[in-house]
């Protein structure tokens, strides 16, 4: 009886240990890929058209989902904001509420979540399939470094695209909020814009939002690239890797957002 219990406990501990080792190994391998992507970035800038091509696939192709989502998010913010603010007689502050919510939080965070779902999954699936169909091996055998040729341009494309997409998200969101607040609800046009202008700070709000979106860009793109690179070369392997990209990216973005916001509020 004691032997059975000892066996069960030891099996449980071994299971936990092996899972922990696998997680730490993946973290190390992901960090290594990140470092290599930085080291072999020269090609991405020397032949900038390679990076631009990826900016098109990751950034430009994500525009539609970003703009439509931003529009609705801005409209909902205005509706909800007005509903609360009018109770306190500050419905003119609706412009500030919409702008600050978008620039500080929702712009970078929702953009990153949508980016992970739209562009991140595409990157993982593409690289996973390149691995499955031996395209990466073929590149290696041609003496072409896949990290310099495949990973680095996609990495920089993600880092470049994310702040631009987040800025567009905030801009379109403010426009959506304006359309609901001013023409639909009847908030004063001048108060909407002037309060926003007076209370949104470039350093504390906009720059911090940009910093967040750059960090999210690095995290989401790197996670997508690593999952593709690490995917077992089977249909099932690529499918699991794509799912992991969305799950890990989303959790990482939300976690990082808390950490960054804490630092930004303290500093």
């Amino acid at each position, binding site marked *: 009886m004691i032997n059975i219990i000892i066996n069960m406990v030891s099996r449980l501990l071994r299971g936990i240990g092996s899972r922990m080792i696998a997680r730490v190994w993946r973290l190390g391998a992901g960090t290594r890929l990140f470092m290599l992507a930085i080291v072999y970035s020269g090609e991405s800038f020397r032949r900038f058209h390679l990076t631009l091509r990826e900016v098109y696939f990751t950034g430009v192709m994500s525009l539609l989902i970003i703009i439509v989502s931003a529009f609705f998010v801005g409209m909902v913010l205005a509706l909800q904001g007005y509903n609360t603010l009018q109770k306190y007689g500050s419905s003119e502050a609706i412009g500030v509420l919409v702008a600050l919510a978008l620039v500080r939080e929702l712009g970078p965070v929702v953009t990153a979540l949508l980016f992970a779902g739209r562009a991140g999954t595409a990157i993982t699936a593409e690289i996973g399939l390149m691995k499955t169909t*031996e395209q990466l091996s*073929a590149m290696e055998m041609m*003496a*072409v470094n896949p990290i310099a040729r495949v990973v680095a341009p996609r990495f920089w494309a993600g880092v470049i695209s994310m702040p631009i997409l987040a800025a567009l998200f905030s801009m379109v969101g403010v426009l959506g909020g304006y359309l609901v607040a001013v023409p639909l609800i009847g908030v004063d046009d001048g108060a909407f814009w002037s309060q926003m202008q007076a209370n949104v700070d470039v350093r504390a709000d906009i720059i911090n939002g940009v910093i967040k979106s750059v960090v999210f860009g690095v995290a989401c793109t790197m996670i997508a690239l690593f999952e593709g690179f690490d995917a077992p070369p089977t249909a099932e392997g690529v499918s699991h890797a794509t799912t992991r990209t969305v799950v890990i990216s989303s959790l990482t973005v939300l976690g990082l957002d808390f950490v960054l916001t804490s630092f930004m509020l303290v500093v």
Partner: protein
Amino acid sequence: MTSNIVEIDNLSFGYNGRVLHKGINMAFPKGKVVAIMGGSGSGKTTLLRLIGGQVKPTKGEVRVNGQVVHEQSRDGIYQLRRSMGMLFQHGALFTDLSVFDNVAFPMRELTDLPESMIRDLVLLKLNAVGLRGAYKFMPTELSGGMARRVALARAVALDPSIIMYDEPFAGLDPISMGVICGLIRSLNDALGATSIIVSHDVKETFLIADYVYFVANGEVAAEGTPEDLMQSTLPFVHQFVHGEKDGPVPFHYAAPDYRAQLLG
């Protein structure tokens, strides 16, 4: 001065506790077409990966142009690979690039040739494999045989001195098989290269190979010219060459007693 462009010396390799090769010796003379044959899972493709430096041997060494592959730095291995071309089993064409761009890929990546010269060279290579007219196609628009031919044009794009073929005949119709077969021999002779073919297609391989190695159980089970091997009385070679169902490689995978298993 050796005339062998690739030499495998007492090579052993394995992973995850599984031994794949046990002290293999092979030589690939300059200008010859040499085949490595054996059953599925016998480690033939891994030998190509060892020659290309994609994996490291656990013992022994592979020498390419007299240089030990696994002792090279990353840059050294890349330098060695510039003298190699490889045709992968399913072509491994870049699916986001057209046929033209696939063949131009190594030229654009590894040379400073002007675009006008790259254009001429690509058309030259595509003409050699009979697909100059398909230069605008995307890989998804090609049949299996055509994709293999484009991959062959890409493999020889920089006139390599060693061309490796991983199962070049697998899954092809007889016409495509004949075309690939002829191209391997003619490109080898035209470029003065050394070809290493990994295959289990006896008829086609014996037609073009100058020398054949048989790999079984991690060792070189037999070697010789195709004529020698056709006459071989070695049980494994005889079974393999004549496609016999049973022999040293049994039809039945190891299993418990049939009667006992059926009766529970």
